[in-house]
């Protein structure tokens, strides 16, 4: 999930607030908190962190081409590189270091067993273009994960190759486009209904495929009504893209009616499954009438976020979309598994084609299957229950001190708006920065856009009661301080981080996207 802090760029006051802010130490290090220069600034030409076997003497066959020009890469030995990235890592907040309540992102525990399994010989060293006879275990693994995903969603097919949620959206919407074309409606069905609360990838995907986005509003309870959908449905509508549970953390109560109406109108129901973690093992999207849904394995199925990726976004498909699944896919006949890689093969006659090189994010499949096997159906039931329990526990205790746009139980995330900050001079952004000082990664803020100054808090099932109680304590304390008129406290936050607030306006106005030997940028300390 993404947050549009960019939507409200911060341009902090650049005057040094306090003469005491002059460097307190010679190099800027402070105890265990180190200043770290760019790697390029640490180069010692002539050193190298990799030794290689001697190259055999041969006659070059690099005909034609000119020689490689100087590249400009820095030169360091291994100890320096290890120290550099170790130090950098320590400047990150992470699930492993603290509660990470980033709504819509499902920052749950990433088990180390997953990592270990991914590195097994026979998996890590498998080339994607080996003959299938030598990769039966890998194909079986994909097949097993596909089986889990189909059973958990109740859907009859799944496209495994999409690389992330947005790529899954692209895949699913293409399948819909193909199905429509198949019915000869390509020219007419050009619209896609997208609720205003949707994640940015939904309209972006629809638009990239040439669809016109038709917004639909939610009601006062944060949910889309079947009536509202019906009002915009028509023969020109290709699909609806609906997130469920939605980006406000609420279950769409009318979802079955919406699905029926969409189907009745000859359109398709794309469900954004980013929030599947709330219901996995408890509600099967097939039972809600969806036609396709992407699953972010990097959310619900615990594959690591890795500072931004990689992910994987398999898309489950209904009977009517299944024929359009992209290549490649795995087919099992008896005990033998095959990869269908070409649309020329009969099993793929109606396939939309290929979306990605090779066969999908195998490393994520390994992790996700490990996660499924570890949990079992019963463990997943428990996990989604705990995720929802935790969010409601937080909501129940913060709702009196913060302000809730929508009443009632939430799903896996608790949403607040900034009404409680009215006239305090404290913004959601300020509040978030003060949370950082208190040792917390902020929740998702200013998303969904439909809620003013949104605070979207997703604790996930991985947090203990004690950890959540501590978090609640801090949130209450901050809310009280804000209301007590301590706006300065918030404006100056964060104070305890390796960097104070960063000038995002400057970054965007005078973009510096790379280091240059002649760069004017002054070094850290």
């Amino acid at each position, binding site marked *: 999930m993404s947050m549009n802090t960019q939507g409200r760029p911060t341009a902090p006051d650049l005057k040094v607030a306090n003469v005491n802010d002059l460097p307190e130490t010679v190099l800027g290090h402070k105890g265990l908190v180190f200043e770290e220069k760019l790697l390029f600034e640490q180069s010692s030409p002539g050193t190298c962190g990799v030794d290689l076997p001697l190259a055999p003497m041969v006659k070059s066959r690099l005909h034609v081409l000119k020689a490689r020009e100087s*590249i400009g890469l820095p030169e360091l030995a291994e100890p320096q590189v290890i120290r550099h990235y170790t130090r950098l890592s320590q400047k990150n907040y992470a699930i492993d270091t603290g509660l990470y309540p980033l709504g819509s992102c499902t920052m749950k525990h990433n088990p180390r067993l997953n990592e270990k399994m991914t590195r097994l010989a026979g998996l890590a060293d498998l080339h994607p*273009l080996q003959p299938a006879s030598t990769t039966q275990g890998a194909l079986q693994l994909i097949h097993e994960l596909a089986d889990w995903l189909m059973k958990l969603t109740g859907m009859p097919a799944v496209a495994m190759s999409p690389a992330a949620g947005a790529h899954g959206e692209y895949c699913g919407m293409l399948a819909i486009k193909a199905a429509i074309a198949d019915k000869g409606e390509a020219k007419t069905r050009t619209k896609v209904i997208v609720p205003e609360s949707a994640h940015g990838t939904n309209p972006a995907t629809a638009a990239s495929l040439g669809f016109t986005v038709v917004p639909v509003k939610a009601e006062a309870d944060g949910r889309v009504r079947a009536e509202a959908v019906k009002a915009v449905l028509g023969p020109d509508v290709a699909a609806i893209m609906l997130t469920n549970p939605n980006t406000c953390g609420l279950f769409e109560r009318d979802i079955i009616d919406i699905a029926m109406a969409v189907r009745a109108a000859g359109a398709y129901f794309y469900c954004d499954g980013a929030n599947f973690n709330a219901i996995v093992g408890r509600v099967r999207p097939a039972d809600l009438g969806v036609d396709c849904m992407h699953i972010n394995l990097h959310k619900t199925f615990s594959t690591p976020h890795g500072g931004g990726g990689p992910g994987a976004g398999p898309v489950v498909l209904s009977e009517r979309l299944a024929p359009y699944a992209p290549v490649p896919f795995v087919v099992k006949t008896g005990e033998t598994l095959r990869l269908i890689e070409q649309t020329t093969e009969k099993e793929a006659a109606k396939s939309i084609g290929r979306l990605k090189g090779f066969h999908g994010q195998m490393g994520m499949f390994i992790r996700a299957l490990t996660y499924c096997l570890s949990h079992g159906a019963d463990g997943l039931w428990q996990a989604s229950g705990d995720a929802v329990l935790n969010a409601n526990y937080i909501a129940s205790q913060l709702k009196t001190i913060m302000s809730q746009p929508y009443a009632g139980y939430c799903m896996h995330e608790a949403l607040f708006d900034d009404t409680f900050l009215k006239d305090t001079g404290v913004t959601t952004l300020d509040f978030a920065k003060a949370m950082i000082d208190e040792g917390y990664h902020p929740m998702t803020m200013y998303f969904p856009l439909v809620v003013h100054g949104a605070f979207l808090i997703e604790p996930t099932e991985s947090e203990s009661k004690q950890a959540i109680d501590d978090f609640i304590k801090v949130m209450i304390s901050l809310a009280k301080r804000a209301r007590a008129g301590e706006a300065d406290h918030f404006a100056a936050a964060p104070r305890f981080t390796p960097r104070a607030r960063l000038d995002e306006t400057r970054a965007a106005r005078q973009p510096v996207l790379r280091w240059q030997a002649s760069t004017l940028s002054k070094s850290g300390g």
Partner: protein
Amino acid sequence: MRYLPHSDADRASMLATIGAAEVDSLFADVPDSAHLKGPIEGLPRMQSEIEVERHMSALASRNTGTSAAVSFLGGGAYRHHVPAAVDHLIQRGEFLTSYTPYQPEISQGTLQMLFEFQTMVSMLTGMEVANASMYDGSTAAAEAMSMACRVTGRNKSIISGGVHGHYRDILATQAKWTTQEVLLAPVDAQDTEDLTALIDANTACVMVQNPSSFGHLRDLSKLAEACQAKGALLVVIVTEVVSLGLLASPGSMGADIVVAEGQSLGNPLGFGGPYVGLFATREKYMRQMPGRLCGETVDANGKRGFVLTLSTREQHIRREKATSNICTNAGLCALAFTIHLSLLGEQGLKKLALLNHAKAVQTAEKLEAAGLRVINTGFFNEFTVDLGKPAAALVDKLAEKKILAGVPASRLYPEAKEVENLLIIAATELTTDADIYQLAEVLK
């Protein structure tokens, strides 16, 4: 369940606070017909680490990994040696379990790394700017095609016959379902292609791969000039980044956009993914780039720091007007790439490239000595031999002996009957004399 930190007592006490009778009550909004009353049937129950490991190891043992075989496989994914330090560092929880760096004050680690990544990618490709990664090389190519259309306001792209079969398929898919068009030049096994004649006023871009899918090396300067003359962009694909340690950069030959598969540095073969897409271009097209960008700035105390920037190109801000729908990218693979390249440095990369070339030349020489015909004039670490009989069948047969002899061209270009006898062979620094000897023995 070992990952779930609540005891039943915890749950009871939390429910009491909420005022709900049981967890299921919290799911009151779920329509009854869809609300399961217990765990889904037909799926296994929770298992211990011991059991899960046994299951996964059993699956792994049904594969023949390249390290348990003689392998000359390439074709867009290369078996290189990844220094132990790389895998250690990328598993540090602070990197592994953090999200996209949206809160820069507590994400300087990821941000500074991305800035270093972008710089390295720019340097390698010879371009002015690079983004913070795409899913992989193939999807980066698709994004490049879209970007070329945006930049030029045209919609036709010419795709070289030397481009990887999968990449061509993806571009064709994209063209099929959007207003973009592709002109797929015939498969170019023999390196005879000349695309200049095809470029016209509707051409958004010409997309070529170097080295080509068959291993041929090209000087693209002429093509670049031809593109420029017609206002089209030259997009260069690199599927083997190690080659950039030895070959003139695409930028130096006049490329407008360079996309590359970064797997070769830092990332295991892993049956095809996750990999990391590199995307670089000219500064003037910066605002048309897809994906995230990390930029330098200062903090409130004037200290240098890094942030995600120019997000007004992106879906979370621009929604339907975004340059791409990409959100999650390939962060951790980009980290692995960056660390591996940091360890190598300028000379290390050049040496590695030279070693790869030398191993490939050795292999080619041995095969030629065994009577095979190498069709390439020049190559980097991958070349093509004509077996005089269908390659796929032979490859399948050799696999039984744990010899992965190469990629049959027919695997990537099944529609091109004329390449049926061609075998694409890649060597890397991991290729041994014994490997080469065995390959020559079974192919002669």
